[in-house]
């Protein structure tokens, strides 16, 4: 791809993300549906408070969520050498859900929910990995996929049991909304809780973005080029999953972003992760913020973000699949 075109694309996406972020602070249901006139920010104390303490933290978290899901999706697709993998793969999402439900039922503080979600997401990843290693048939990717399905199913069953035990008036709705994914309750404190996990993970992934190309090659080739495939893949996986789990602990299950955005970015920037990974981060931020804008402004009640990302992500995926060039695989 020509340098000029790439630079133009990055500038366009960067400016679009910035504009989306800033303008989204004025999108919502106050004082009327969809749009708050900007002058109100200076004139109306309630409007100012709304923007500063509700919408801005929510936007920051939406931005981080989009960036993290897309980056982790891109990382997982590269290291599992499979374009259909996404961050919730390998028991990560279901593990996080189980951890969060456990915390809602028996502990209750927001810190513990974040901690438990991260702990169980990691446990899901670890269990899938160990199980895949122990399986005695099939290739590595097939075994990982199967192990991921089994571990997810077990955690899913566990969450089911917890739901039957939950108080139907207080705890059950909380678990259900968490499962649907959303950012309605986000505070600055949540943003602060997420940052220590998300920032190191994202920084690591960003810095190793060119190295990811090597890790998508066969082991013997990657090894001959000086990489330590198993160790480097584990490091990236750990960084990505820690970041994803911390955001999932606040936002719940938000699907499709991590699958569709890396595809879209590969379409725009090509297969080289040096460019498509930052591209996916920018696109993921824009996509998630826009989805959240719709989630909080379209109807009087909030639409869960996970439903919107699935709806838009699924349709975009269909469009990508039917317009894909022959011979070119994503």
């Amino acid at each position, binding site marked *: 791809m020509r340098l000029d075109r790439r630079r133009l694309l990055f500038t366009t996406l960067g400016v679009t993300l910035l504009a989306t972020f800033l303008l989204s602070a004025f999108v919502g249901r106050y004082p009327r549906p969809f749009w708050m006139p900007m002058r109100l920010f200076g004139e109306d104390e309630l409007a100012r408070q709304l923007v500063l303490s509700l919408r801005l933290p929510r936007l920051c978290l939406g931005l981080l969520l989009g960036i993290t899901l897309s980056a982790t999706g891109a990382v997982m697709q590269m290291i599992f050498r499979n374009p259909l993998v996404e961050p919730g793969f390998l028991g990560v999402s279901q593990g996080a859900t189980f951890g969060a439900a456990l915390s809602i039922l028996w502990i209750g503080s927001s810190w513990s929910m974040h901690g438990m979600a991260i702990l169980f997401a990691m446990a899901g990843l670890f269990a899938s990995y160990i199980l895949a290693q122990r399986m005695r048939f099939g290739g590595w990717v097939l075994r990982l996929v199967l192990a991921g399905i089994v571990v997810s199913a077990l955690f899913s069953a566990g969450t089911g049991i917890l739901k039957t035990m939950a108080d139907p008036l207080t705890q059950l709705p909380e678990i259900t909304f968490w499962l649907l994914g959303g950012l309605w309750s986000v505070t600055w404190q949540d943003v602060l809780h997420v940052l220590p996990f998300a920032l190191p993970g994202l920084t690591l992934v960003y810095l190793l973005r060119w190295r990811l190309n090597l890790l*998508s*090659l*066969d082991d*013997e080739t990657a090894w*001959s080029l*000086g990489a330590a495939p198993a160790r480097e893949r584990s490091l990236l996986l750990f960084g990505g999953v820690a970041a994803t789990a911390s955001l999932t602990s606040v936002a719940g299950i938000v699907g499709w972003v991590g699958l569709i955005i890396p595809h879209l970015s590969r379409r725009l920037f*090509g297969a*080289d992760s*040096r460019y498509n990974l930052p591209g996916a981060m920018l696109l993921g931020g824009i996509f998630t913020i826009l989805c959240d804008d719709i989630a909080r402004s379209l109807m009087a009640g909030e639409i869960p973000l996970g439903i919107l990302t699935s709806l838009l992500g699924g349709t975009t995926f269909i469009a990508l699949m039917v317009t894909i060039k022959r*011979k070119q695989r994503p």
Partner: protein
Amino acid sequence: MNDTTLLQIEDLHFRYDSNQAWIFEHLSAAIPGGEITAILGPNGVGKTTLLHILIGLLPVQTGSVRLVGRSLDSYTRGEMSRLVGLVPQLERIPFPFTVSEYVAMGRAPHISLLGTPTQEDQYRVDQVLGLLNLQTLRQRSVQELSGGESQLVRVARAMVQEPQILLLDEPTAHLDLGNKYRVLEVLRSLLDDRTTVIFTTHDPDAAFAIAGQALLMHRSAALAFGPVEKVLDGKNLSRAYGLPIEVRRVDGRFIVMRKDQDS
């Protein structure tokens, strides 16, 4: 070990599992630098395994391997990758990298862990693509290449690595006659900058065409090692492959064929 020896293999044994039989045992060879060495032998004799040991992917279990006078274990990953390059027999590339992006990955041993290729690296990539007449493929996807193009692109990737030793696992397998000789020609041209080439093959013709030395492996051991004409004679090949084989010399070229049953 004399002065020209680059790779000294002594009494090397290897097996994947301690309960299994050796893949090979008592393997010894002194491979000289700046030459082309062909490794031949029937399927399953451990040719690919040997290459994997030489890049450090598999450990030296018994015996020793010395590279430029130093034990293989004493090299760091970085040192090894600047010294030895590998072109595996088959490579699945799951994403549609352009040829230029893919070949640039060969620069990895010269780029820090967190780095990306510089303009100088890109210059090296373009130079090697030019050398192999592949400039027109620069922006093509590696998934759209023909068998011959793909093999040459993989050789280019290993060449930009600038290794002293280039290992190739069956570089001419699955290639048509034209592409086979094109690839062999490129390997021969590597001698110009003193790169040592070691390749495995099932094709004695490829060995005769470019190799100076040959290692013939048979039943988990080295059957013969030395100058290619001496190693790949009728007697050795017949023993290695369990068939009556003769090697004829016609106009200075060697032709390998199965002996007629009635002759």
